[in-house]
């Protein structure tokens, strides 16, 4: 067996342990160095990711392919950005600053494993490896009751959704007698040919799967935990949750769905399209009413997952490649917006949208960046979000899902009005008391990466699209 293909994860895990241990021996004022150390580990892991090959391990349990590599890149990038921001944010954390970084790393390892999982036990354990550190991270600001509440809610809902997912897994195991995705696929084909229409057990298990992943992805109607958790959690963790953990849920969903379930002749399109439409409509409309930027971004990310699902509903190579591509575009724009919110919060202690008034006067560059991130989230050309949405919609139009695309574009118009609401505060309103936002080094790095990502992907999407289309070739349609 070629163990080198699992090297990026192994390395990062050992690195996380190293950070855990060195946390004990580091003086309180030097803990920021642990953050830089974690960043180094991620960089090495990215290097390892692209230098190791593809292949399968443990008898098809773990497979490193273009899809997993693409998403591992997304996870590593989002965790890099998150940690880079947290170095400055950790002034708000009173104790165990080093562990904060290490927990993010462990969660990232979980995500990376998850993106390679092709067996349900492995998938479940990696999923838990993703979420359990996140429960802790959400509750990390100990004296802040909001943070504890976010931790509690996230933990309870996360555990319930895991249990629901597990119940689905147990049913599918009972029906097919295996936990390997590719074997489930063959059994389902055989079942379908022998038995015909869907049985109640299989139907239930599909529903449980969709509900379980729906919770993880915060799809409407399984979204109610997301806004509270996003608002209460430390903002870097929120950024990480909104991108990293979503992408992780997404890739697991993609694997389960396209690797095995899809063969079963079931009305997938209607179910998924309904979920996508609901997420886009409710996410965007409720986001209109928000006054807190973190909550607003939480609802907007619910809607964004709806858009991503539009690509999935197409059930085509184009669809999956656009899903992967959009995830990358979303990563930079969304984390970027959060980073600006973090910089603002560090200085002013507020995350209310109305407190952003007049920001363009005191911090023009930061405002400009926020504008670019938000416009990319809306999908205004020539930014990354536009190209991504265009391809998502193209995939759906190809399959004649015009009604879904019409809903998607109409809700995009709605989304424009609340994103623009922030711009309105920053640019059109005057506020003589607005402070100048200081941008520390870590935040500066993160902002730079995000802005380059958003603009570069928008103008020259070719290499990223190639990568995404390779990722999409992993599945057969």
């Amino acid at each position, binding site marked *: 067996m070629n163990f080198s293909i699992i090297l990026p994860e192994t390395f990062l895990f050992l690195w996380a342990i190293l950070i855990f241990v060195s946390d004990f021996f580091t003086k309180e004022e030097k803990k920021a160095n642990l953050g830089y150390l974690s960043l180094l580990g991620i960089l090495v892991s990215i290097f390892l990711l692209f230098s190791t090959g593809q292949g399968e391990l443990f008898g098809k349990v773990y497979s490193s392919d273009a899809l997993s590599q693409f998403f591992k890149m997304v996870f590593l990038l989002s965790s890099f950005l998150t940690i880079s921001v947290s170095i400055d944010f950790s002034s708000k954390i009173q104790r165990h600053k080093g562990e904060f970084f290490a927990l993010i790393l462990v969660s990232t390892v979980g995500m990376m494993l998850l993106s390679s999982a092709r067996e349900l036990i492995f998938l479940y354990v990696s999923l838990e490896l993703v979420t359990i550190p996140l429960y802790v991270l959400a509750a990390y600001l100990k004296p802040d009751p909001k943070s504890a509440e976010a931790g509690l809610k996230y933990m309870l809902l996360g555990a319930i959704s895991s249990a629901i997912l597990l119940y689905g897994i147990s049913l599918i195991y009972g029906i097919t007698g295996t936990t390997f995705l590719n074997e489930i696929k063959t059994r389902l084909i055989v079942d379908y040919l022998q038995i015909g229409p869907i049985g109640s057990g299989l139907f239930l298990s599909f529903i449980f799967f969709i509900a379980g992943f729906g919770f993880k992805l915060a799809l409407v109607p399984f979204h109610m935990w997301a806004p509270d958790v996003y608002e209460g959690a430390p903002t870097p963790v929120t950024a990480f949750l909104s991108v990293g953990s979503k992408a992780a849920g997404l890739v697991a969903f993609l694997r389960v769905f396209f690797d095995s379930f899809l063969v079963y002749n079931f009305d997938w399109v209607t179910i998924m399209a309904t979920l996508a439409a609901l997420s886009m409509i409710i996410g965007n409309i409720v986001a209109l009413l928000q006054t807190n930027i973190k909550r607003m971004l939480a609802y907007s990310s619910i809607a964004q997952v709806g858009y991503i699902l539009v690509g999935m509903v197409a*059930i085509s190579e184009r669809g999956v490649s656009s899903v992967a591509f959009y995830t990358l575009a979303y990563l930079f724009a969304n984390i970027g917006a959060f980073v600006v919110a973090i910089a603002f919060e560090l200085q002013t202690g507020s995350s209310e949208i109305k407190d952003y008034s007049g920001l*363009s006067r005191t911090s*023009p560059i930061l405002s400009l960046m926020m504008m670019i991130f938000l*416009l990319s989230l809306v999908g*205004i*050309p*020539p930014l990354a979000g*536009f*190209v991504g949405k*265009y*391809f998502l*919609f*193209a995939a759906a*139009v*190809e*399959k*004649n899902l*015009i009604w879904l*695309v*019409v809903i998607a*574009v*109409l809700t*995009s*118009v709605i989304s*424009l*009005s609340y994103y*623009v609401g922030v711009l*309105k505060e920053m*640019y*059109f309103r005057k506020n003589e008391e607005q402070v100048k936002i200081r941008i520390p080094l870590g935040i500066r790095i993160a902002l730079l990466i995000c802005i380059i990502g958003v603009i570069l992907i928008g103008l020259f*999407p*070719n290499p990223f*699209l*190639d990568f995404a*289309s390779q990722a999409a070739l992993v599945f057969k349609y």
Partner: protein
Amino acid sequence: MSEYILTLLVFIPVAGALLLLLVNGSNAGLLKSLAFMVSLLNFILSLYLYFNFDSLNPGFQFEINRVWIQNFGISYHLGVDGISLFLVLLTTLLSAIAILSSWSAIKEKVKEYMVTMLLLEAGMIGVFVSLDLFLFYVFWEGMLIPMYFLIGIWGGPRKVYATIKFVLFTMLGSIFMLVAILVLYFMNYNYTGQYSFNFTEILQLPIPLNAQVWLFFAFALAFAIKVPMFPFHTWLPDAHVEAPTAGSVLLAGVLLKMGTYGFLRFCLPLFPNAFMDMIPLFSILAVIGIIYGALVSTMQKDIKSLVAFSSVSHLGFVMLGLFALNMQGIQGGVLQMINHGISTGALFLIVGMIYERRHTRMIEDYGGIARVVPIFSIFFMIVALSSIGLPGTNGFVGEFLILLGAFNSRIIYAVLGAIGIILAAVYMLWMLQRVLFQTIKNEENKKLLDLNLREIIILIPIILLIFWIGFYPQPLLSKMEPAVKNLLEYVEQKSDSITSSSGECDKICEKAEESSITKEK
């Protein structure tokens, strides 16, 4: 050179904007002169287009066609023909003028203002020269943002409302165009087996009749909102009234033309049958727009909103010309786009100039100022008369051609349109009378200063253009003619072939559906 000239025209303003970002924001003088130099350079470059344009060639010239996003068949395809040439020239000219006109009006955030103006210029030129539907959409949509900030930051008291309304209206319209573009893209794939957004390739596509109607409406909604046609015009007066002078100039002078240009460039050749079917509907809407705009203008108390509503009326003329679907009508329509850009742009400039002095735009606050500011009044007169369409001015040629075209297609539209001209004379002359003549009621008006040199320099080229086009429109018309003729012939041929072979088209459609069904399996 001739291959890269259009690229230069689009990206010089962008480069200029980036350059301005590096300049210290407190150095307003340098910022202004830099921005003006960049826009002037762009204008001079665009003159290269005019002088090297081959009048006999009906197709696209100065073309550049490169692959941009390979996986999706998106190309970087630019080119101009006789129709878009003058719109590009208009854009570069008005941009330079608009930057010059905001010399003293803009006092805060000069840097951001100039950057926005230059980006807006790049976007506008991009819209007129793009020959790839994806690229076109990128410019079309991307241009919203600079305009949004232009109105939102430097606008009047109700700017926040006006900007949101403007952005939501235009976005709502264009978003359906996005869907339609994607549908066209896949139709083209099913027909040719090639993924392409290239306009010249999609043009070859015989689109079945029923699909044409839907696609036509998806495109037409975007363009009709931009024009704006009655009943989608409600955003326009708000945006105009709140926008700073330069914003109004570009909005009226260039942005509105994108709608009419879109009808001519995309709706007509892509969906000829649907276009012909919709002639009655759109002609009626155009006539309603002409008369409604004129009537509402008559009642305005604010000079700027009077000019704004007169735009609705004038653009109605343009639409009437385009939907006459004959040589005179379309040529008149294109010419009138230019004329309206010049005259209404100039009207907004003049209103801006007097607003800077008195900080009011209410007609009743003025009266009798012709004696105080004679130079200003002369300019105002000339421009207003050209807007009415007095013989000898540019407006006359355009409106005459349009009415001729409308007369040849359906007399009733021409007659109703002519009423619009009469009404235009009523509201313009009445406004002139109340502002310039009568007795001076307001003491403050006695202290008004006349135009300074910069303002005169701004207006001189416009006045020259007004008379040049008014007396000798031949150079413009002759450059337009081959392109328009070609377009009309093409449309006739294509619509005939689609009508006669509609059975065959259905077959193609069925085949496409079948192939997509088999692919799904």
